[in-house]
């Protein structure tokens, strides 16, 4: 047994102006509830980590975000990653001070790759996550910034290698093609990036059922898999998902329910 490290299931909260929302292909948002209440529920159900992405459209929304981070962190004793709108070391500091354990940078890292090194230098590599949003263009997976609206000239695998060399401790890889579609994770994209770097890769975008998680762990070589809508709308419960993945032979953190019902 080379490692007993488990595969992680991560619940994601896309937060806009204080409420959790979810869209399809980065558009068409619906309200899914209170971020702190959802975070508490997912942590109690055995989510291995929480990710909160700030997709606020307004300055007021952004200002409220520190308060939202604090409210979420208060509920948690598992890691919390915060992303969205982090443009500087000062933005990162505000999020860390409010209770984030890791920061995910995306557009700002594309514009200023030195920001990755700055965050890793001050807070440690394990706290510096780079979010990569990728979309296939012919045979090439290209990186996009600004919530999937701004094409960059970079290829996902090449950018993943660069962010690793700049000190990133983890990659949050989202397939724009699959995001919100529930058609399954992009295993080809995930396997290409995971095989190119030695840091963990979190697969995101497209989770629709438990077999999609098994696929992305086994075929996509993902270290962790992230989902939002299938958990928010309660089609898939985290404990049942993790139990099932464990039965497929994947190492999972299975916790006993606290009420002793097991």
């Amino acid at each position, binding site marked *: 047994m080379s*490692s007993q490290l*488990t595969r992680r299931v991560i619940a994601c909260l896309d937060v806009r102006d204080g409420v959790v929302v979810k869209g399809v292909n980065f558009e068409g948002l619906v309200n899914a509830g209170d971020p702190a209440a959802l975070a508490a529920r997912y*942590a109690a159900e055995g989510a291995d980590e929480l990710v909160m992405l700030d997709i606020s459209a307004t300055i007021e929304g952004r200002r409220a975000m520190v308060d939202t981070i604090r409210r979420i962190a208060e509920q948690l004793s*598992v890691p919390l990653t915060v992303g969205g709108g982090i443009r500087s070391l000062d933005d990162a500091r505000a999020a860390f001070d409010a209770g984030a354990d890791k920061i995910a940078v995306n557009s700002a890292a594309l514009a200023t790759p030195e920001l990755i090194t700055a965050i890793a230098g001050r807070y440690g590599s394990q706290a510096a996550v780079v979010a990569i949003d990728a979309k296939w263009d012919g045979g090439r997976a290209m990186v996009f910034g600004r919530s999937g609206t701004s094409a960059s000239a970079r290829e996902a695998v090449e950018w993943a290698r660069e962010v690793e060399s700049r000190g990133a401790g983890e990659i949050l890889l989202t397939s724009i093609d699959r995001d919100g579609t529930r058609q399954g994770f992009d295993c080809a994209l995930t396997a290409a990036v995971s095989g190119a770097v030695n840091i963990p890769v979190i697969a995101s975008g497209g989770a629709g059922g438990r077999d999609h998680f098994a696929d992305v762990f086994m075929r996509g070589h993902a270290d962790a898999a992230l989902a939002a809508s299938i958990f928010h709308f309660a089609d898939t419960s985290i404990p049942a998902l993790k139990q099932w993945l464990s039965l497929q032979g994947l190492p999972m953190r299975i916790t006993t329910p606290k009420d002793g019902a097991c």
Partner: protein
Amino acid sequence: MSATVALVDYGAGNLTSVMRGLRRAGIDPVIATSPAALADAAGIVVPGVGHFSATASIDDEWRKALLSRVAAGVPLLGICLGMQWLFEGSTESPGLPGLALARGLCQSMNEIGTQFAELSPDLIAFKVPHLGWNRLKPPWGCIEIGTQFGELSPDLNSDSRLLAGVEPGAFAYFAHSFAAPVGPETVATTTHGATFASVIERDNVFGTQFHPELSSETGAAIFANFARVVRR
């Protein structure tokens, strides 16, 4: 009654979650930015993330203050890099001494792992950093996944005060690239490529390679046990 515990702040990382975790265990953490702040502390926590060289900012005055408090019986808990620093040193920063409260040198997990590469190439199929949830095992014997942990013993290690009530195979959250060797102070081990010391304990000196503040119920139990030791 809450006990005052000094949280050593030497600029390595973010203390928010550690503070929250300690408070939940009934500990009143006070951030210590100078050695003088240790004088009244009933307990000391050395947190830490990042590179071993970050501990260089803990200068001679800090070292003397920490060692004298430990010698006076004050409980000390090192977390992650804070635990590695309790050893004699680390190959991450050769020449930079640790506190030498535990024996051995910390090494890169790649170095430790590749010692096994000749035996089987499969054994090196692991990523470094070791990041995520892994199991705590007793320092003796070799327990693999699938064993009914609870049937072996109710406690991971009944000799450890820090691990009271923690079950064998309990999960904890790790984030590190260097690791400490298994030695006489080891009270729990974890396997990632190779097996390393994940919890150490000797008298009033304690260390966890993982982050109790991010380790859900396992972490809460460990902070509660540390709080109990501090109050005694």
